[in-house]
């Protein structure tokens, strides 16, 4: 194989077209000139391979700039960029002229909005489809995840725009803004909503924000829940069944960034009154604000992908055990030397949804620390939040006050007028951690919105489901969210699986080094993805254990036993073990005994 003749970063479309023309010629020769490109519909002709090998085998990934709000407008159109985000909305399919015959050569429009050559008339052409996804930066994404895979500095690159280009570009954007304020009622409504949300945000989470300003950029707030106010990206994905991408998936898209001032120009409204309904939703996403990305390579991201340097070591039990020890001792210190709470917190952080049978969820372990009051919540709560933020890729802290419940938009809602999904606080990617501070809750009356929000939270707690409002019906979306509640007494609004009275004996005051944090992140990500296998003897053993436990205590129910088993499983994996053994079960029983003592 010869190396790529094209600058894949600077001119990816050149490579796409070159491979296409080559493939089309080959196909034409093979089929004798009849419909040579028909077979390319929904398929790759080799372009993908070129990019994959460039990105992943030749280390080209580091050369690809990361598209974000800061460099939007600096990157030259039709170059290769990367974007990491969550699929916030699925905007359906788009049909485009995929291939057409220009004279005697077949050309393609794949991976671009525009044809570089004018399409002759009449001509043979093929209509292909692509999927549109509206992607936003991951809600609650913590700052450390961004350091993991920095792209090259855009301005030093050859693909940077020249000043005059930038100028022109800017004007386009200005026009656009005007345009939007004129006819985009979505934007208008969202901006009217903005102050309210901002208020809620400021009043409730300001102590936390001010405390760790250097750690939490604005991304971690609720800003992204206002459509249009934050950076987002319209990703066009090719050649795959749509079912492969799910709502709220977090993925990295590598593809061609396109910007065409002509596209940004206002569409004629003269005879289009009736066509606003046919008008696709992309019209509300002005290209100057919402960049278009034609995805060449897509990969789903897991917590592992956010680690800055993947450790070379295999996850051996010995290694994992030592990290477990250091993490546990750190947790204990953060929790004011409350070892039981630390143990439970560790199990909680390692929990993940394993299975869902009807309404029964298996594997989740929501945690409720009781015994907090406002003061201790501000001390320990912040410590806990702080730590979680530095350990997990996505986390959010929600102050649960009457005001918040009555005003916040938790439920994602489909706006059928604009055809878009308006996000809510609970539109979260799988594996998000949520901390509720219930100490702020005082008696008061809930409005109907407050009741709805409470029901949503309850439903999330109980069945890991979030109901999305589609105006004429509700649709339940499965989630996997870790939920931690800090409350004074046992929280009756948010019924957690595990209730632990919190008994700190000293004030926390520890700081972890960067390496430690690094290893803990790796530990959490690794343990959560460890496979579990259990031999049939263990089944028998556990069943016997359960039966004897039930004999001892008649009040044990299905849910408690199920929770024990969950905890035992997590306990086993926390030591890096693949299978559950009797010691882990005993450890959990001991933990439960201690916990029950405290509850009395």
């Amino acid at each position, binding site marked *: 194989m010869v190396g790529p003749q094209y600058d894949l970063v600077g001119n990816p479309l050149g490579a796409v077209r070159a491979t296409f023309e080559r493939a089309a010629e080959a196909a034409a020769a093979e089929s004798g000139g009849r419909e040579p490109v028909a077979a390319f519909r929904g398929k790759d002709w080799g372009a993908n391979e070129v990019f994959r090998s460039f990105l992943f085998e030749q280390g080209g990934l580091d050369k690809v700039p990361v598209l974000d709000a800061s460099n939007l407008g600096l990157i030259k159109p039709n170059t290769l960029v990367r974007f990491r985000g969550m699929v916030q909305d699925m905007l359906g399919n788009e049909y485009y002229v995929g291939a057409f015959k220009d004279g005697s050569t077949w050309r393609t429009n794949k991976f671009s909005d525009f044809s570089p050559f004018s399409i002759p008339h009449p001509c043979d052409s093929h209509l292909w489809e692509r999927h549109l996804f509206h992607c936003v930066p991951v809600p609650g994404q913590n700052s450390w995840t961004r350091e993991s895979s920095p792209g090259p500095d855009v301005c030093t690159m050859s693909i940077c725009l020249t000043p005059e280009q930038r100028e022109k570009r800017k004007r386009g954007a200005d026009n656009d803004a005007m345009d939007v304020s004129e006819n985009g009622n979505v934007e208008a409504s969202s901006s009217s909503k903005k102050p309210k949300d901002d208020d809620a945000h400021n009043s409730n989470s300001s102590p936390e924000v001010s405390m760790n300003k250097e750690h939490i950029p604005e991304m971690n707030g609720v800003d992204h829940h206002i459509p249009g106010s934050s950076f987002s990206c319209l990703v066009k994905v090719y050649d795959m069944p749509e079912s492969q991408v799910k709502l709220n998936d977090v993925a990295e898209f590598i593809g061609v960034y396109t910007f065409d001032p002509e596209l940004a120009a206002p569409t004629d409204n003269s005879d289009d009154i009736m066509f606003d309904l046919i008008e696709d939703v992309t019209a509300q996403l002005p290209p100057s604000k919402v960049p278009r990305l034609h995805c060449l390579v897509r990969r789903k991201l897991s917590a592992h992908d956010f680690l800055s340097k993947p450790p070379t070591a295999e996850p051996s039990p010995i290694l994992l055990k030592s990290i477990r020890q250091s993490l546990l001792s750190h947790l204990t210190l953060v929790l004011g030397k409350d070892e039981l709470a630390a143990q439970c917190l560790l199990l909680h952080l390692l929990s993940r949804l394993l299975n869902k049978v009807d309404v029964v969820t298996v594997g989740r372990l929501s945690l409720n620390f009781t015994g907090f009051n406002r003061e201790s919540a501000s001390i320990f709560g912040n410590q806990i939040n702080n730590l979680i933020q530095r350990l997990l890729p996505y986390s959010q802290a929600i102050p649960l006050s009457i005001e918040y419940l009555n005003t916040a938009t938790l439920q994602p809602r489909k706006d059928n007028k604009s055809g878009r999904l308006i996000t809510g606080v609970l539109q979260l990617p799988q594996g998000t951690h949520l901390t509720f501070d219930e100490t702020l809750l005082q008696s008061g009356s809930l409005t109907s919105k407050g009741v709805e929000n409470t029901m949503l939270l309850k439903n999330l707690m109980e069945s890991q489901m979030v109901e999305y409002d589609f105006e004429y*019906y509700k649709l339940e979306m499965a989630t996997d969210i870790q939920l931690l509640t800090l409350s004074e007494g046992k929280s009756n609004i948010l019924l957690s699986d595990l209730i632990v009275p919190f008994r700190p004996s000293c004030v926390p005051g520890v700081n972890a080094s960067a390496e430690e944090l690094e290893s803990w992140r790796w530990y959490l990500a690794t343990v959560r993805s460890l496979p579990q296998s259990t031999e049939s003897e263990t089944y028998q053993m556990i069943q016997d254990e359960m039966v004897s436990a039930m004999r001892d205590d008649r009040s044990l129910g299905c849910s408690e036993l199920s929770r024990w088993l969950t905890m035992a499983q997590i306990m086993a994996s926390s030591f890096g073990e693949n299978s559950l053994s009797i010691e882990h079960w005993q450890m959990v029983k001991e933990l439960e005994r201690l916990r029950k003592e405290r509850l009395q």
Partner: protein
Amino acid sequence: MVHFAAVSSPDVRPSSPLPATNSSPAQSGRSGGRRRRRGSASPYPSSPSLGGFETPPPPGRRTPSGAATSRQRQNWTGRFPPTPSTPMSTDDVPPSSEAGDEDTPETDGGGVDADAAPVFVWGTNISVQDVNAAILRFLRHFRDPRDAGRVDPVMDEGKYMRAIHRILELEGGESLDVDAHDLFDHDPDLYGKMVRYPLEVLAIFDIVLMDLVARIEPLFEKHIQTRIYNLKSSVCLRNLNPSDIEKMVSIKGMIIRCSSVIPELKEAVFRCLVCGFYSEPVMVDRGRVTEPHICQKEQCKATNSMTLVHNRCRFADKQIIKLQETPDEIPEGGTPHTVSVLMHDKLVDAGKPGDRVEITGIYRAMTIRIGPTQRTVKSIFKTYIDCLHIKKTDKSRLHIEDSMGTDNPDANKTAEDVSLGDKVEKLKELSKLPDIYDRLTRSLAPNIWELDDVKRGLLCQLFGGNPLRLPSGANFRGDINILLVGDPGTSKSQLLQYMHKLSPRGIYTSGRGSSAVGLTAYVAKDPETGETVLESGALVLSDKGVCCIDEFDKMSDNARSMLHEVMEQQTVSIAKAGIIASLNARTSVLACANPTESRYNPRLSVIDNIHLAPTLLSRFDLIYLILDKADEQTDRRLAKHIVSLHFENPNIEEIEALDLPTLVAYISYARKYIQPRLSDEAAEELTRGYVEMRKRGNNPGSRKKVITATARQIESLIRLSEALARMRFSEVVEVRDVVEAFRLLEVAMQQSATDHATGTIDMDLIMTGVSASERLRRDNLVAATRNLVMEKMQLGGASVRMIELLEELRKQSSMEIHLHDLRSALGTLMTEGAVVIHGDSVKRV
């Protein structure tokens, strides 16, 4: 014509997306003709798929009714080839010789002209003459096989000929609905052509139809459109793809948005400002009207003097709706797709947002122009569906239209029946399974462990009995009320939640949070008008559904007493200032409560444990005591269940159960269409069993501590047996139903375990929720033990230790036997009077 590369020919007006969808009939005919012509002459054979959107030809059927149209139509049908000089010829000049040629088949009135060279639809192998003849054959000769048996004077005519006559007689109809199934049955080839080339075939269809009409009634002026519906296969909105473009598709969905009605100019009339001369109507060509440059009046000839006269122009209605996927078609983790649908004329406002509809139409794509001044078009297409026919499908869920009441069970059996046809067949097949009863039981809350008999009772509640209204006005309810009383942690609430999900119009409330008015109804003052209004409470809202009340024991007495009326009379009466009303509350009540001392106290009688007013208690058909009793068997099974939830257990047996939607459909079908009646034998069995129950209750030692059989109970039994028959889709209640009903009633109250002397329950005898297989196993064990006792032990001989018996039994049988099992088996034998047990030793008597 619309080409997306209009750039190359600057003379051509920038193509607008508009005209493609709504050009006039004249053009439709002409464009169709041109396409056909080109097919025979085109030097560049192009792919058919391309032809589809390269020239989005307006469908011939987009024609609005009206004088001009029919006039235009008559050009076609009235044996005159269209002359190039007609005012609508704003397009490039068609070669008239060819026009005449291509019109030949049509002018022939649909008959096959043997002399004419075959004319093909451009880019296809469809012969216009063949299609023409086939359509004519279909319209003339199709006879509905369903009509075959009927004797009808008009029967010598086909179904559609009758329909055409009807339209002519009424002079109202403007469209002929054609069932695509009929078309398929009659001529599958024609059906295939129609689906693949709808524009062309439908244009011919309209022409044939108009010609037919013209022959019957030459003076008939209106234009009749063909509306195809009920295609053989309907596409899922999500699966529409580029290959469907220009094809006829049928999709189901929900309307989420409608645009306002858009008047669309069809014909423009101009007046000369100089001389006042009115021009001939100018047809709108692809959204544009060509204003005449010169006044056509010979004497005037003024240039640029023409002005549009609005009120002389003709407009047609148009509307765009957005159709969204219904929730059941959305895959997990996806959002619903939407598609725009263009509606014309009569179809405008045929559906409202929120309606579920099935739309038959042509899937189309059009180019997007960049700007009004730019000729370039983007390489992107917008898609929409040109609607041909809209049908409202049944309400959101099968079970909403549930006619449990006696009011009019046959009223709404019409349209929905057809669409549900194959679903119903499946349900009927299910109902024929011998183990359907067990299967249904398993399908109900499969994740809730054990409690099989409770689930059976709940199933009965879901299916319900027959309500009866006597001519005298007396009303007997068909709803079954159930009370679950039990120890905490026995998943009562989960059962309730599940029932709430399953039942039509289920309402779930908690006793602690419900007030009397909240449950029934209350009178409120409207803040704006000051009028008193009735607001419905939970029970009224769950009319014809199940009202689930959790924590029944924690409800205030006042609220509870409100239930008396609801549970027997099934109405809620309100007598407040200004309003005296009686509201229907035909609801089944499912309540659950904890025993008085929060755990069941075996020393107290059943009644004392439940501690509810007997008046209320007697209104529950079934009262289940769900007792948590130490039983290693159950514990083990529970443990196994939990473990299997957590691990991918390979040796867990696959239970055959119905999934939730099927279960819901099954129940609602049964409730709607099956009205079982008691057979004579069943009635006899009922009387016999009832008398027996009464006797038991009148046991001299009972001291009223037992719930005795009352007249209410016989009603309950009838309801239960009816529900059981319904589960089998049986119209007759058989003896086995009655027997099972008795069993359910007994199990419910643990009556088999009640010591009639004291009214308390013998805890050792409780077999809560023992599954059928388990019961069989225990029966076998009893039989085995009996045999053993008979064999080994002398009548009145020495006593044997239980352990010895156990070992003996273990030797004999292959199954695993616990001492506990043996003890219960011996207990049964003891009640039979075969043995006596003293501590650990057994003695035969």
